């Protein structure tokens, strides 16, 4: 499973992008479960955020959903922070 996160906006206006390929990873099952829950609560179109709030684009195997601060679900927040931290 290929999980990509793109973060835009924020006070600095600096974009960040990272991705994790779960194939061959020992924790792949955990990633899959988290990614599916994050996708389920995502939206098909970018939500309306707040000025300087981060906007996120989460793509899992080609399927993209959108989310924005400060209204993320716990699953989205966890997935986003793990991908941006551990992804390349």
């Amino acid at each position: 499973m290929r999980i990509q996160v793109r973060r835009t906006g924020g006070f600095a206006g600096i974009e960040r992008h990272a991705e994790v390929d779960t194939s061959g990873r020992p924790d792949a099952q955990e990633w899959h479960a988290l990614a599916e829950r994050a996708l389920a609560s995502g939206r098909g179109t970018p939500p309306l955020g707040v000025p300087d709030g981060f906007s996120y684009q989460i793509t899992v195997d080609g399927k993209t959903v959108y989310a924005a601060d400060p209204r993320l679900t716990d699953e989205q927040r966890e997935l986003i922070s793990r991908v941006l931290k551990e992804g390349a």
Partner: protein
Amino acid sequence: MTTNGGFEPVFCTVVPPHVLDKLARHDDPALSGPARRTLMRDSELRGRRRVTAEFGLAAAPAAKAPSDQPLRTVYDAGHKTDLPGRKVRAEGAAPGKDATVNRAYAGLGATFDLYLKAYQRHSIDGDGLPLDASVHYDEKYNNAFWNGEQMVFGDGDGEIFLDFTIPIDVIGHELTHGVTQHTANLTYYGQPGALNESMSDVFGSLIKQYTLGQTAAEADWLIGAGLLAPSVTGKALRSMKEPGTAYDDDVLGKDPQPATMDDYVRTGRDNGGVHINSGIPNHAFYLVASALGGHAWEKAGQIWYDVLTGGELSSQALFNDFAKLTVAAAKARFNEGEELQAVQKAWEQVGVRIL
């Protein structure tokens, strides 16, 4: 589930008008309903602002005059995302041990002061709105924002960004998003979005200058000085004096801001480049303030404030709409003097034509 402090986003600030128009015509009432309500609310607000400006009427008669003192409350989100968090400092309470809490409290006060003393505005809404801020939001959170009701500050990750309460202009920037929301309500996309961002940079910088008692010549005209971690190659996030020169770093990349229309960036990212093209009106403000000298909040700031709050600025204004209104405001406030010339010349220098 993550809570959001009961906050409902102000839809009309974010969606570009052409998208709203299209949505409002959609067959699905779930899509057309909110879009129609947003358009109605938008036009109603604009109408009310025009009536207020032309007839000098208050939008709603105030029961009593708002106080000349701020009403601040700082909360500690405890590295979680539930807002507002635990109350840690109320108005008038002595400083505590947490420097972040103290900086947030002082920054809210400095913002309140500039708006009141320079422009006779009582708080963000002009009617004494209590100022709430939550610090220590989330873990290593690299951002700060105004959520429509209150301030939210992250601690930064320590690698790229430090604590977002450090630069006072960042606090002023975010609170000015609240002022814009309550006045011109500039749509947060494309040119109106870049104007929205620029308003926040202009008044954020003025709050810093006012606090330090600086003249235009003494000010650094930087946004976010002190926010970048020591390992980052850069002095700040944006420069109003020299847009595009604030940072140039291996990890962050290079400051993408243009100073003039020749380098205007067309992009769908960052809400249509709101943090990028804001460099153009930012630089125009810097040029006006520098030409006039002295305290920038007194003349240049007054002209910009008159336009932001005067009721004529549309929520969908483009750069040249805004420029035209600054010329009118300079005339109205200072007659045909050096102020008017400085405003005209600044827009010409950044390549914004006044039609």
